[in-house]
């Protein structure tokens, strides 16, 4: 599957990048970081235009993210409302919505370019808890554009080492996530010991 996507990108360029970005943003586990880095390498080889690649990759991703948000808002909200009615926990849902409004922007923004595997889930969750859509769109567009600029530029810079670079960035991102979790849990452990 990945080989076919990379072959399509190599052969058809930005339109393929746009389509694949949209499908990945909806939730299919596609190697977007690798594809953006390969796109950067193709830019460096003169096969793709830098700005076109960024514009189409961002546009595709934003379209897919919005689809995920809409799916969560219409489908997820109905399920959630039925559940809260069943459990009589309306106040919990309201609290979750307030928390999401406070921290949702950072979550949407960071999951576009730093912890990309969480992106589709955050889209669904944002729609489900009815995170305000203009704010979702703003953070989404900023994050996706930053991600496209970042990964395409890095691919352009290290255009002869794309596979190793994609693997390096993927593992570094997960190492950072695991480290953040470790710091949080250490703090929780400290609080537990003091109680």
């Amino acid at each position, binding site marked *: 599957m990945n*080989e*076919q996507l*990379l*072959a399509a990108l*190599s*052969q058809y360029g930005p339109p393929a990048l746009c389509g694949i970005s949209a499908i990945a943003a909806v939730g299919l586990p596609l190697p977007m970081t690798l594809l953006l880095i390969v796109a950067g*390498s*193709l830019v*460096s*080889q003169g*096969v793709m235009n830098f700005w076109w690649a960024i514009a189409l990759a961002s546009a595709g991703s934003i379209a897919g993210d919005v689809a995920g948000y809409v799916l969560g808002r219409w489908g997820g909200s109905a399920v959630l409302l039925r559940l809260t009615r069943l459990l009589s926990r309306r106040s919990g849902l309201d609290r979750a919505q307030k928390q999401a409004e406070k921290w949702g922007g950072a979550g949407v923004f960071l999951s576009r370019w730093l912890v990309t595997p969480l992106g589709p889930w955050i889209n669904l969750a944002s729609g489900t808890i009815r995170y305000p859509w203009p704010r979702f769109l703003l953070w989404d567009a900023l994050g996706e554009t930053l991600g496209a600029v970042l990964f395409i530029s890095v691919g352009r810079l*290290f*255009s*002869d*080492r*794309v*596979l*190793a*670079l994609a*693997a*390096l960035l993927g*593992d*570094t991102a*997960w*190492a950072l996530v*695991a*480290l953040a*979790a*470790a710091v949080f*849990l*250490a703090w*929780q*452990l400290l609080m*537990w*010991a003091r*109680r």
Partner: protein
Amino acid sequence: MVTLAGRRPAIVYSVNRRNQGLLIGLAFLLSISLTAVFAFRAGRHARHMRFESESIRPWMSVPFIAHTHHVPADPLFEAIGLPPHPHDRRPLRRIAHDENRPVSELISRLEQAIAAARPPGVEPATPGRAGPR
């Protein structure tokens, strides 16, 4: 009865509290282990990036392979029996299909052509040494 009833929640609370600490501790150890594993893997990829050439994959086109190995594309096209064409962006898999030849044969011919196309005195980069940058 009152004393017993009063104590029971305290015992439950104490067990739950211990379990809670154990769970947090285990999750902490797991996250530290995962950090170490991913950091080790990242380090290995960084070394690979620095010292080894990219391997040839069926999704790559001939100009792409030429670029990643720092050799001209023309001898690579010739090595697989195709006329040199800088705009031929077909992946190796597609070329193999069009020419009715196995991909592995194309890759092996390209590897030989890359070794031959390197300037004299430059050792092949894979494995262990960096290619010309």
